[in-house]
């Protein structure tokens, strides 16, 4: 599904900075992968490079077998909105639109028929439990609801890959759990491939597999067994081993 081969990313500037070094990874269809690592390890850069927002300096990325970097700029926009879905830490909902309108935005940009949009919207807000706030402005709902609306927007066009950048970073633990359960549910029912960058070991414990990155290189990888809480312990251990900042070491909250 997603193949990343020998990616390098160098930020040129007064002092050149190498964010990613020879990084390769593969994500299979329907997989839910978490990316973790200390601050400045290149997690977000990796996500940006995969999401075509940023260009890799060298290396190759294949999404569903095609290389998006060979596309022209406007084709790239179309590719992004048809093949990819994004969930951000800051939600990035459009202030001028209501929740419902925010969700259908990718469809309207693609010129989908109104009746179909209605249909998909009503099914998705049903599924994510945000039916009641459909016509509210985004200032009138909680952050957890905003993030779920953002998730709904990210999956309404049935993307082949959903990319999430710290989706729980701005939420309290209850809202976090709700959001993560939503993502897990989508992953299970729709078989949507997901890749999530996170700091939060609890959020990471929902993944099938967690990849650790340090200094722009692959460091470690752990796979979920049968038990989520055991997986969570493994993640905590890996973080401790990684020797990241103290703030990486969340107190056990389960």
């Amino acid at each position, binding site marked *: 599904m997603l193949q990343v081969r020998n990616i390098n990313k160098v930020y040129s500037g007064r002092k050149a900075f190498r964010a990613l070094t020879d990084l390769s990874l593969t994500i299979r269809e329907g997989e839910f992968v978490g990316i973790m690592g200390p601050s400045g390890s290149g997690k977000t850069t990796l996500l940006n490079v995969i*999401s075509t927002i940023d260009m890799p300096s060298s290396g190759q990325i294949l999404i569903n077998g095609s290389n998006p970097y060979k596309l022209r*700029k406007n084709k790239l926009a179309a590719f*992004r909105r048809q093949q990819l879905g*994004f969930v951000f830490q800051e939600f*990035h909902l*459009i*202030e*001028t639109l209501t929740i419902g309108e925010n969700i259908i935005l990718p469809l309207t940009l693609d010129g989908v028929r109104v009746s179909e949009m209605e249909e998909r919207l009503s099914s998705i807000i049903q599924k994510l439990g945000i039916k009641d706030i459909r016509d509210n402005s985004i200032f009138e709902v909680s952050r957890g609801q905003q993030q779920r609306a953002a998730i709904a927007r990210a999956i309404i066009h049935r993307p082949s890959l959903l990319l999430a950048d710290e989706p729980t970073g701005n939420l309290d633990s209850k809202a976090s759990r709700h959001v993560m359960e939503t993502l897990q549910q989508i992953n299970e029912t729709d078989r949507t491939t997901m890749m999530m960058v996170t700091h939060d070991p609890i959020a990471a414990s929902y993944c099938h597999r967690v990849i650790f990155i340090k200094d722009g290189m692959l460091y470690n990888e752990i796979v979920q067994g049968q038990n989520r809480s055991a997986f969570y312990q493994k993640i905590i251990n890996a973080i401790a081993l990684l020797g990241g900042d103290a703030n990486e070491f969340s107190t056990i909250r389960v």
Partner: protein
Amino acid sequence: MNFLQFAFNNVKRHARKYAAYFFSSAFAVMIFFLYVAFSLHPKILPSTVNEIVSGGMTLGASSIVFFSFIFILYSTAVFVQARSQQFGILTILGMTKRQLRFMLFLEFSIIGVGSILTGTVTGLVFLKLFLIIASLAVGGSSMTFYFPIEALKTTAITYGILFIFISPLSYLFIGRQPLMELLTVRRRKLRFRNSSYIFATIALCCLIWSYVQAFRKDIGTFLIAFMVIHIGLYGLFRHVLPIIMRWMKKIRSLFWRKTNLLKLSETELRIRENGLMFYLLTILWTITCLCVVVLVSIRFLMDVTPNKEPFQLYYVSNLNNPKQDTHIQYIEQSLKQTGVTYSKQRIPLLRFTTTPENYVDYFMRYQDYVRLGEFYKSPITPLQEGEALWLSRGKENMAKNRTSIQIPNHSSSLQLLKPLDTKKNWMPELRGKNGSVLVITDSLYKELAANTAGESMTFFGYQFTNSNNALTLFALVEKGLGQEGVQDRYQYSLAAYYEYLFQQMPYIVIFIGLFITAVFFTAGASFVYFKIYSDLNKDLVQFRALYNIGVSIPELYQIVKTRVVLMMGLPSLFAILNSAGLLLFIKQQDDTMFKWLPFIVSFVLFILIQTCFSLILRKRYWAHIENSLK
């Protein structure tokens, strides 16, 4: 780092944040400086001795100061609000209120001094440029560049005081807010004030009724319409348009289509939020548009008038006028005294009231006409018996269609001819109903001279070959001969007096006009600029988000375009409608005063300028967005 350095670094390193504020202040300074520099220009200064004109100049200057004060105050408020979080952090760090106030004072002083310097320097550059343009526009004597030391002083003092007053005022904007409010940049909840159908209906009725009044001739109701239209306009932006937008949003097939979703909802929000601003802009630009119309009309009039009056000064004396010789002597002496050189025409005339229209007509001999023709170096028209040549058309509109006239106590009627040279008026329109001058054959003239129904008189016309002191001369002549116009036994006209005023006035009228127009134009545009830019940082995040979820660059550009077109276009459209309505009404009242051509030219000019403004605005704004996407 001492305190001064801190304040200086604050300004220097947040250059972009301060830029909008800085430039708007510098702009206000520049406009004022230019205005003062013009009014003190050595060529203009002598003609401002007139009380009314100098009053007008002062009024212009004070309105510019007032406007820039409001403008600077407004931008200060926006600017200070945008920085409230920083003030909060500084307070937490232990900055006392006094220090905060001092910091603001220092910052505003730095910006103030900077903008005064920038404003005057750019003002000097523009002064040169403007003088060139002005000389071209007015034509004739060119205005030379001078170094306006007085203007520099006035500007520096006025704006120095202004900026000193601004900083304590700016403190008022933040002074009362509790620390908590300053620190947490709470996201401003969008106010969705309700629009009411009742007010919308009332507003729409007011608006339509007012526009309809433009097509009718009743001055009283038009004046009422003049008031009522304000209700209509405000209601339009506040109630009618939001309701229309709401309806449009209900049409799913329209609203849920491509970028319409973004465009329409944003448009609705902007209209809802800025109803008052739209209304103010409309009024502002209506005035601007009318200014343009007046300026262009004056420019057109100036082209027309010089040919209109063939004699700058003439004196018509009845046969039994005892004072004729003394008057003529007095006029010529005054001419000599004021140094005006001239050529003189003396033409005997006969005056009859002719039928069927009962117009007063003046008749002159063919030989005098030939003499005039030689003088003008123009072709002369041959004349047959029973014909009369039309030298001046007369005042009445109806007289255009005259073909033949009948002189009392004379058997045959006369056919009217038009002269070959129709571009120039050879003789002025004289006093009396219509008062046109006609040429008849010498023999007929001799015959009519004996006719008792007529009066014979003598026409003395003076054509100036140099006219530097014409205004002084006119004053002198008026003093000696009494009020201009018809006396018992003589009439005289300073026909060219108004023409001269027109030639002298433009410097004043056009400059004041140009300035006020320029100020209003840019005032509106910078208002829009400020409105758009105050949200720039928030917008950048939104555009980034849109870009990330796959909105293509051209689609983003569409959104920006819609925004600028809305902000500039909507008020401009209604400004044009308003001025068109007003002009239509005036035209119905007095057909001769305004012509269509200047109207159309002015509207085109207005639209062109507004388009330029919005293009620049859009380009600058888009550059910011595009940069942030890279």
